[in-house]
């Protein structure tokens, strides 16, 4: 079965002469087409967990299976989106979108047409030949989505993708992501510290504690789909949001136990 299976993953980093335990014995499964958010205080290891799934960091112990195959490194089956869109500034929007097929060597005569179609879907028709610097923040993020979608990833990994956007643009991008997910139903693991964003977008919210990072609770979000931003005004939504927030607040971690290397833990 497709999906992500994280089993008993632990990870420590050497930091300032001491060993900082970032993740301890974390297990979580994300089903095919499921949208799961990881929330928790800063330093709870949620980004490290995402990067382990992405293949950029190797776990000290435990395993990560994607489609039953162990993760050994980065791959185009797992698209990655960062807080900054990370478009290549020397390429036009279209060429950014075509980067994946060219890098993979899967460029065929139909690829360009498919990229143009995808750029239309993300609302960038007419901007194909613009450079990233000529786009607004929200447009850059939509271009980054188009670029990631071009290689047909089964899983999208997102690390606070809208964290740097202003409130209005962020709302627009959340709606954009909801619509895109309804169309494609890819598997998503989203790291965020925005509880409202997690509840709005996810099927399940996984709450993590800090020092070391551990999974404390997984809260299902049974709100009806397709969702729009209006759902955030319903009492169900507010109740779920409160539940998640309380879980985050009650999770171990935070100022009381700040150790020497905690605040500056690199990932």
């Amino acid at each position, binding site marked *: 079965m497709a999906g992500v299976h994280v089993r008993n993953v632990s990870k420590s980093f050497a930091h300032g002469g001491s060993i900082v335990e970032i993740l301890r014995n974390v297990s979580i499964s994300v089903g095919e087409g499921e949208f799961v958010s990881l929330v928790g205080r800063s330093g709870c290891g949620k980004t490290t967990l995402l990067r382990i799934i*992405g*293949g*950029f960091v190797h776990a000290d112990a435990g395993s990560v299976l994607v489609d039953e195959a162990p993760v050994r*490194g*980065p*791959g*185009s089956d*797992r*698209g*990655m989106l*960062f807080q*900054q869109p*990370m478009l*290549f*500034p*020397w390429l*036009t929007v*279209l*060429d950014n979108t075509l*980067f*994946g097929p060219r*890098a*993979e060597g*899967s460029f065929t005569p139909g690829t360009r047409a498919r990229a143009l179609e995808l750029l239309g879907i993300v609302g960038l028709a*007419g*901007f194909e*030949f*613009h*450079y*990233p*610097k*000529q*786009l*607004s*923040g*929200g447009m*850059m993020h939509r271009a980054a989505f188009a*670029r*990631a979608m*071009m*290689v047909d*990833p089964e899983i999208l*990994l997102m690390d606070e993708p809208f964290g*740097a956007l*202003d409130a209005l*643009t962020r709302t627009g991008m959340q709606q954009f992501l909801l619509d895109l997910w309804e169309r494609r139903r890819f598997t998503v693991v989203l790291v965020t510290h925005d509880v409202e964003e997690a509840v709005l977008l996810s099927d399940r919210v996984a709450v993590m504690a800090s020092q070391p990072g551990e999974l404390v609770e997984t809260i299902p979000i049974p709100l009806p789909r397709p969702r729009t931003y209006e759902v955030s005004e319903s009492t169900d939504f507010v109740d779920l949001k409160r539940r998640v927030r309380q879980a985050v607040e009650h999770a171990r971690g935070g100022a009381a136990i700040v150790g020497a290397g905690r605040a500056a833990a690199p990932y």
Partner: protein
Amino acid sequence: METQQKKFAMTGPEGTLDERSPAAPSGASSPPSRHAVRPDTRHSALRDGLLALDWSRIGMGLIGVLCIIVGWWLAALVISDNVILPSPVATARTLLHYLTRPYPARGETLLGDTAMSLARILAGFAWGALVGVILGALMSALRPLRLIVDPLIELGRPLPPLAFIPLLIVWFGIGELPKIVLIGLGVIPIMVVSVVAALDAVPEEYIEAARSLGASPRYALLHVRVRAALPGVITGLRLAMGISWTSIVAVEMIAATSGLGYVILEASNYLVTTLIFSGIVLIAAVALILDGLLRLVRRLAAPMG
């Protein structure tokens, strides 16, 4: 909006080192203005490079040059001594006259001497840049090498290349070799420092994005890390080109019988001040052209950059 941008472009100096921070998000408010619809991606970079030339800025720059010439001319009128300060007109006359005619004391034209200096610069610049880029790239990739070479560069960088001229003459004589070696020695540390800085400045997320788009480590290295560092490397080339001129003129004044540095020195021996100025103007003109070429290349490498 448009005029504001232009004003800003005028006041902000082009080509400083901070230009290679690609992660800086551009203002969300700037609307796409000039390049709204372009049907073809081919050659668009070149067109952008030419379109991006800011003609009002060039105009303002010319006004500055004009002011200098007028000031020079007025000063020459007041002083009215052709040896201390010849007028721009007299200088231009000498410059144009000897551009293609050999100067009596020696059998070379100004154009020929310019070509001589240019050839030395290009040869020295080429080997220095090549070594500097390779060394910088290796240092960026191999941490031990960086730890070994960094102190050497830091030791050597404050030394003016000119301090080596006597040594190079002892080693290589007074032919072309010591001059080309000297220029390269000036170029290497600048290129090492800027190549290392440019490669280091490439955000790791670029590489990770490329890898998760299916790029192999090798493809990500060549098409992303190296490519992203290119504008910074070209900026380094511009700085190195400036140093090359300093080196060549100095070495031509000390140990040469040709080249613009030699012409200037000779002219001062004979008190032909118009020829001194002619040499200076030629150096400025050729240096400006070379820098303009590098700036154009940088524009191509960093569209909208």
